[in-house]
């Protein structure tokens, strides 16, 4: 009983810590996006709240918190309430299997815990994909239950888009899974240790560079970001699926979008760029004779990789205009899908012959 209690306490602490980190990252991202976008467009971004506008996320949060919560007439109240939660929970729950730091174990009394991952389940990446699909329900139901044509159109677009591009996300990952021989993100990351050419983007015998490109493009589409932001195209559909949402419910959708961005960036970093591994074997702090603090450097590397993906999201947003709907579909099914499938075939053959040679 006490062991169960202790395990629960440890798990809850980890969940709270990870959720806090994600929320803080999301707060940071809302500011960083506006700032980076502004700088790229010769503007300043938010400058009013706090020095250089650094308190803007808090101002936004307070504003959204105190806004009137409007439920439109004719809306399906139950689904209207459920949709933001359905969008947010899957986005946050995926972080349970992301390894933030080295695969160490910590002995506390009679049992061991892994401090840098909430739960090392052996179907890690499948679990993330499964919950990402549930997140699409939140968007579709939110669009449908609002009783508004813009919301419905946004939801429909989102349904078609997420289904088309989730396929590509799944298929682009398969190459990595073939090479790693595991679905667990911990084992996939462990298999990429050593020099940076062991990362699966560059790894012998089948570099997953095309898979990374397909993954990043599909991830942008799946998180409904520019240039694939058709579900919330503001110049066409007001705000798409969350047109009718206000206050905290709107904040939930917003949070879900950014949490999804962080999640796909984390997955990309863990699957293709070696996760928490430094580009060189071991860690600098370990070489300096402090191996107990090597995890600091490792988590830093993970953060750097994740944030560079997030920067790529902003960068794409500042550069590219929105795709037309038929272009989006054609690109997903006729370009991305064949590349992903071909990548699987080539990787499978390469790995097979590589193992035969040994």
């Amino acid at each position, binding site marked *: 009983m006490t062991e169960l209690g202790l395990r629960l306490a440890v798990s809850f602490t980890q969940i709270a810590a990870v959720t806090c980190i994600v929320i803080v990252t999301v707060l940071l991202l809302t500011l960083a996006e506006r700032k*980076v976008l502004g*700088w*790229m467009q*010769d*503007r*300043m971004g938010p*400058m009013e709240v706090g020095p250089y506008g650094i308190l803007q996320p808090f101002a936004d949060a307070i504003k959204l918190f105190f806004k009137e919560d409007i439920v439109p007439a004719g809306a399906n109240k139950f689904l209207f309430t459920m949709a933001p939660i359905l969008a947010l929970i899957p986005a946050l729950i995926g972080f349970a299997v992301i390894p933030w730091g080295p695969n160490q174990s910590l002995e506390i009394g009679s049992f061991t815990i892994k401090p840098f991952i909430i739960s090392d389940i052996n179907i890690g990446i499948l679990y993330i994909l499964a919950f990402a699909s549930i997140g699409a329900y939140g968007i579709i139901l939110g669009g449908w239950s609002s009783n508004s044509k813009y919301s419905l159109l946004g939801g429909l677009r989102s349904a078609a888009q997420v289904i088309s591009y989730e396929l590509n996300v799944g298929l682009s990952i398969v190459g990595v899974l073939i090479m790693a021989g595991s679905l667990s993100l911990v084992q996939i990351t462990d298999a990429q240790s050593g020099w940076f050419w062991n990362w699966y983007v560059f790894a012998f015998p089948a570099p997953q560079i095309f898979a990374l490109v397909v993954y990043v493009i599909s991830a942008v589409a799946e998180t409904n970001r520019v240039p694939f932001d058709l579900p919330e195209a503001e110049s066409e559909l007001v705000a798409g699926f969350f047109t009718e949402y206000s206050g905290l419910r709107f904040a939930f959708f917003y949070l879900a979008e950014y949490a999804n961005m962080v999640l796909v960036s984390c997955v990309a970093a863990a699957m293709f760029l070696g996760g928490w591994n430094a580009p060189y074997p071991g860690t600098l702090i370990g070489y300096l004779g402090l191996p107990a603090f090597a995890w600091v450097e490792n988590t830093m590397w993970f953060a750097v990789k994740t944030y560079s993906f997030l920067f790529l999201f902003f960068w*794409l947003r500042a*550069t*590219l205009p929105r795709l037309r709907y038929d272009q989006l579909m054609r690109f997903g099914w006729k370009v991305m899908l064949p590349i992903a499938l071909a990548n699987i075939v080539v990787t499978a053959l390469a790995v097979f012959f590589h193992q035969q040679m040994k």
Partner: protein
Amino acid sequence: MTPPATTRRTDLLEWFKTITFYEILVGMKSTLSHLLHYKPVTLQYPHEKRTLPDNYRGMLALLRYDDGTEKCVGCDLCEAACPSRVIRVVSAEVPGEPTKRYSKEYYMDMTRCLFCGMCVDACPVDALGMTREFEWAVYDKRQLHLNKEQLLAIGDRSYPIREKRLELQHPNTAFFNVAFKHIPQKPE
């Protein structure tokens, strides 16, 4: 018939550009260079204000002579010149001096003003001026309905140097208010 070699080469180049996202990369390079050479064109408006040009046409004002007397002679020309009927002048004789007139009441409805400056041009005694005030946003539209005191106050704070009153200036003979058929009549 096979296409010429040059066409084939350009086709190959186009194909290569397509699969490497060449055009998108060019665009991304452009945005990144703007990020690295960050030179914002923004003016942080309430905190810093741009210098206005000398001929800036801002808020209208009534002016005074250096001895504090009003310049306005109540001729109504500004009212006639105004294309959006902003101005309403009630002209009256100066008591005891039948040849002199002044504006007993002077109203401007600044909600309609388009700041063309034609009233200023029309004024024969330079009694109207345009100031450099432009921050006149109000919560109540009725606050933009200005009377003579308010207009004089704007003039007082915007024109510290006043024109000297000439001795011969004042006996104004005013035969204004000539009615033209093609101009809509002012409401009574």
